[in-house]
């Protein structure tokens, strides 16, 4: 071991670290180090555990019906809430709207996010990359509610877009409070998430691979189709899953840009919990949503394999 000169002292933060290590040794002796991993994931396990407890509560509530005269939950269990939820044409419409909007938003978001992420990864000039990053992150800082409000101002009946259209003689039209507005708002909201999830996947594809494909005879649409998309598949699936689940369970955008007429499942659940105060029906809807989301995610995993989400694309 090298022997430093007597007047040499290690910097303070080194000595602090030494002290911390010594204390850690007392509290958690070395021979327990095999289990250290568990120690670190304990907080996460605790949180998930709480979530499971909550789910059990919800499951319990979902089996009790609301007595509309006393506003009390029934004592005994029944599947009445599920029957109601699954047979109601209102909820079927809501479910279908959420699901179709989630699929549509996912597809549109991925189509827009892919070229953006590709540009972010490939662009040479530092200032262009910075501009792209800032443009991407700015909406993040604004938050969902303010952003939705911004859309109200821009797309409202006397909003900027309609003003501009009236200048060229187009009569004002209703741009808000319809399905299109909700999907539009959702795509705009999800875009940064998708881009951020696609960037690592595209960074893992060397630019040389594209050049090589070109030199082997592939035009750029074929490079995209035969090389880039297959190689970015793990990133696309990951980004798609995140966008899909976030959209399927979204509350704010349909509430604000849908104007009450474009409810998603989350809005219906909200109504049951906080307006009608029918906890039972709300819980049943919530569980149906969890089940539907899980089944769909599970299906994606089954088709593509869970490993596709990890970089490197091992089986």
């Amino acid at each position: 071991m090298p022997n430093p000169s007597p007047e040499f002292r290690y910097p303070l933060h080194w000595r602090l670290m030494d002290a911390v290590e010594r204390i850690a040794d007392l509290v958690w002796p070395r021979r327990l180090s095999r289990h250290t991993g568990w120690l670190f994931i304990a907080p996460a396990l605790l949180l998930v555990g709480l979530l499971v407890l909550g789910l059990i509560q919800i499951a319990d509530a979902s089996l009790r019906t609301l007595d509309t005269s006393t506003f009390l939950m029934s004592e005994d269990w029944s599947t009445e809430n599920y029957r109601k939820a699954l047979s109601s044409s209102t909820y079927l419409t809501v479910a279908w709207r959420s699901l179709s909007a989630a699929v549509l938003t996912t597809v549109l978001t991925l189509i827009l996010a892919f070229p953006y992420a590709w540009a972010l990864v490939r662009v040479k000039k530092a200032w262009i990359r910075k501009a792209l990053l800032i443009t991407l992150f700015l909406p993040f800082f604004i938050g969902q509610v303010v952003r939705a409000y911004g859309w109200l101002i821009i797309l409202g009946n006397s909003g900027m877009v309609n003003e501009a259209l009236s200048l060229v003689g187009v009569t004002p039209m209703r741009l808000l409070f319809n399905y299109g507005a909700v999907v539009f708002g959702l795509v705009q909201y999800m875009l940064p998430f998708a881009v951020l999830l696609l960037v690592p996947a595209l960074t893992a594809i060397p630019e040389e691979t594209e050049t090589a494909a070109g030199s082997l005879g592939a035009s750029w649409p074929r490079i995209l189709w035969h090389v880039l998309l297959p190689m970015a598949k793990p990133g696309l699936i990951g980004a798609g899953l995140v966008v899909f689940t976030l959209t399927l369970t979204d509350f704010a955008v349909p509430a604000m840009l849908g104007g009450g007429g474009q409810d998603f499942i989350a809005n219906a659940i909200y109504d049951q919990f906080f307006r009608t105060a029918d906890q039972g029906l709300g819980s049943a809807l919530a569980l149906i949503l969890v089940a539907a989301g899980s089944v769909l995610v599970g299906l994606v995993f089954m088709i593509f394999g869970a490993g596709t989400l990890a970089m490197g694309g091992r089986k």
Partner: protein
Amino acid sequence: MSGTGSSDAVVARNVDMDFGTGAMAVKQAGFSLARGRFLTILGPSGSGKTTLLRMIAGFQTPTRGEILIGGKPADAVAPHRRSVGMVFQKLALFPHMSVEENVAFPLKMRRFNPREIPGRVAQYLDLVRLGGFAKRRINELSGGQQQRVAIARALVFEPELLLLDEPLAALDRKLREEMQLEFRRIQKELGVTTINVTHDQREALVVSDEIIVMDQGEIQQHASPVEMYRRPANPFVAHFIGVSSFLAGRRTETGLTVNGSDCAGQAVADIAPGAEARGAIRAEQVRIAAPGDALSGCDTVLEGQVSDTIFEGERLLYFVTLPALATTIQVFHHDPAEHAPYARGATVSVGWTARDLLIFPAKDR
């Protein structure tokens, strides 16, 4: 090697590449390469080899000058319509395809007759000796096997020109030497015009019909391997290829005077007597013997002391300090039959013939 004929596969004229980041990446590059030849561009890292190759491939357009492939400007046609096969530094194989699919890729992209494709793929996999590996994934192959896939993929569509950008740099030495011989065999078998880029002088000597040495964006010499070795155009080439010692002195009638001592040598260019000059001599062309040995046939014989001995296996490298020249030179000696090298500090005789000490004008780098 100069003079452009109609049989030239590649011609470069006064090619400059300026990225606008200070020194030019390629300066005034000019050469021509006849059909079917194997050219290696050799130079240290950053000397502009890749840039020159990318311009030949048409991926980059020269700032000035022109590059002709088969008589037509290199960048006149879109990359995917050019008849150029390229093997990249990092290979750039497609990890999501099997070996077979990788090799079939250029055939499909170039719309070959689908019935012809499997046969061709098999033929080129056999050529690179990967016959049994068609169904493997790329990540199931060793480094050397991946090289072979990359070569097959670049050759399968029978391009007019094959470009190799240091594809062997990442391999370990044994495998690299094996692959060098493979390159040579395949190139001879197909007769495809090939330009190879490397910083490995041994590779350049082994595989090439001709070599271009580059430094700081400039072509230093374009010659056959033997000529490059025997008659380097300047001290840079002498230094880069092989192991040479350099002597600074003045030109005399018979050679060079270094520190007042005469050294027999021959000038590569006209140098006025008395002008400053630099001599270069290769370590294997200096003979070493016990002190007092006349070293018959040598034109210059000097005494010196062994300052260091390095055992390299098949040979010994001596550093011999020569008081008469006030310098140290390097000397190779084949592992002697009696296994008794000269010890450090031992006095020895060294000598050389006038033909082997090359004298360059001092201004040459």
